[in-house]
């Protein structure tokens, strides 16, 4: 405990560096997944039993395979593909965005795909244009499921960022590599605890953001129940 108290500034520095690398991928992967999800749902043939069939299905499968790629090898392979340096933080950000996308696309597809056809028809009947309908009807209805996916992406990204430390990229993972070199278990434990705290805090912030942006979910309504079911099924086979 003494070590932690006297090294708070190091922990703080590493936390700031960590967030700088971890937060952009969360935001970017969320934003990118929406057009991709829209496209996949759009390509679904009417009457098909599964969302993931045809070209849309291929996109979802590729996303799933991307998720199977282990992180350290991906961070190492990326410089050859996109031309960044190995120790360039941009490299890690791109890698984390890819993982975020892999997780998020599935969630976006599920969310947008679960919007009731009757509701969207009603919206079109009322005179909404395509874009208006998407932003005013589909997206808000898919909101809880998207939020559930975003929370998973956030926690995953924050944890995954630490891997960059073995490549020399500063993050909370640096507490692990330094701790093992100097034989200071307290340092490693403080890193683990900080990562967990960060994940909890950001998860909480996302929940609050969700409540602010989607006030209709504040009560325990069908939307919330649906989102919870998706989350539970998600927890199951991951």
């Amino acid at each position, binding site marked *: 405990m003494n*070590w932690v108290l006297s090294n708070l500034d190091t922990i703080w520095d590493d936390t700031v560096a960590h967030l700088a690398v971890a937060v952009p991928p969360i935001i970017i992967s969320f934003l990118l997944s929406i057009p991709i999800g829209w496209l996949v749902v759009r390509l679904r043939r009417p009457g098909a039993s599964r969302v993931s069939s045809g070209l849309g299905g291929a996109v979802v499968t590729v996303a799933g395979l991307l998720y199977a790629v282990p992180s350290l090898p991906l961070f190492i392979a990326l410089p050859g593909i996109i031309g960044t340096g190995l120790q360039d*933080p941009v490299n890690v950000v791109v890698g984390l965005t890819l993982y975020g996308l892999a997780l998020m696309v599935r969630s976006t597809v599920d969310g947008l795909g679960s919007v009731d056809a009757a509701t969207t028809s009603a919206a079109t009947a009322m005179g909404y244009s395509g874009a208006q309908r998407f*932003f005013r009807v589909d997206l808000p209805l898919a909101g809880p499921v998207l939020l559930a996916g975003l929370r998973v992406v956030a926690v995953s990204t924050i944890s995954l960022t630490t891997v960059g430390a073995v490549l020399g990229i500063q993050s909370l993972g640096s507490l692990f590599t330094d701790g093992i070199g100097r034989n*200071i278990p307290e340092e490693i434990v403080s890193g683990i605890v900080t990562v967990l705290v960060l994940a909890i805090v950001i998860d909480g912030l996302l929940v609050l953001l969700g409540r*602010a942006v989607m*006030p209709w979910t504040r009560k325990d309504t069908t939307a919330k129940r649906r989102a919870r079911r998706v989350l539970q099924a998600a927890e199951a086979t991951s």
Partner: protein
Amino acid sequence: MITAPKLRAGIAAAVALGVAAALSGCASSSPLDSGASSSSDSKTIVIGSQAYYSNEIIAELYAQVLEKDGFTVKRNYQIGQREVYLPQLQKGAIDVMPEYSGNLLQYYDKNATAKSESDIASALEKALPKGLRALDAAEATDQDSYTVTKEFSEQNDVTSLSDLSKVKETLTVGANSENQTRPYGPKGLKSVYGVTVQSKAIEDSGGALTVKALKDGTVQLADIYTADPSIKANDFVTLKDPKNLIVAQNVTPVVSDKVDDKAAADIDKVSKVLTTDALIELNTKSTVDKEKSSEIAKAFLQEEGLL
């Protein structure tokens, strides 16, 4: 008209933008650019260190002495191995780097035959590329060594590397993975001492994991740096190297052209007081007392009257 949906969208967008802006602000000011851009300010000296706590302490010694003399110092520590930071040093992204003479020489000149401290120093002068120069070496050495437990040494009557060839059991060396490609690694042991060893890669630079592996008997030899306090603490025996397979590793500052004579003189002040025993003391403060490199450096410099 600001409707409820627009308000909600506005909140979400504002939060996202705010977070992104705050973090990009943090990112540009935090030392994240590991060499992607070269240092902009001509009065700022960038000091780097290896991903090795002892090296960071030495770098901090240089940094604080330079700061006392009025220089602006930017720290870029824990960069990684030689193969990563030397190009950055040559590019001008880093200005000062604490180095180890023998390994540095062998990096630039794989066929170097210099063994003694002075030979290495003069060979280094010739081998370093344009734009880099080595300042005076310190007396302190921190070299790779092949270390065994006291029991192993007594049981097999082994006190030097030349005694190893008579040991019957299979020998495994615990060391960083790059040991396998270094001249003093398994290849060197075979050609110079006729000893065949296997390698077990443990990436903690002779740290706690390697020490534990040696104590547990998972490895019989370990590459533990000579300034590591764990050698004395565990009563280990460092095998002698009569044929000088492992060349001397004096702590040598390597600097870019940006470092002028005034700065060089400051760094020399540190080199003059850095003995091997002093280095072991500094290392002990880091691993046993778990102090920060900045505090260790400050205390040492104050003791020596340099701060």
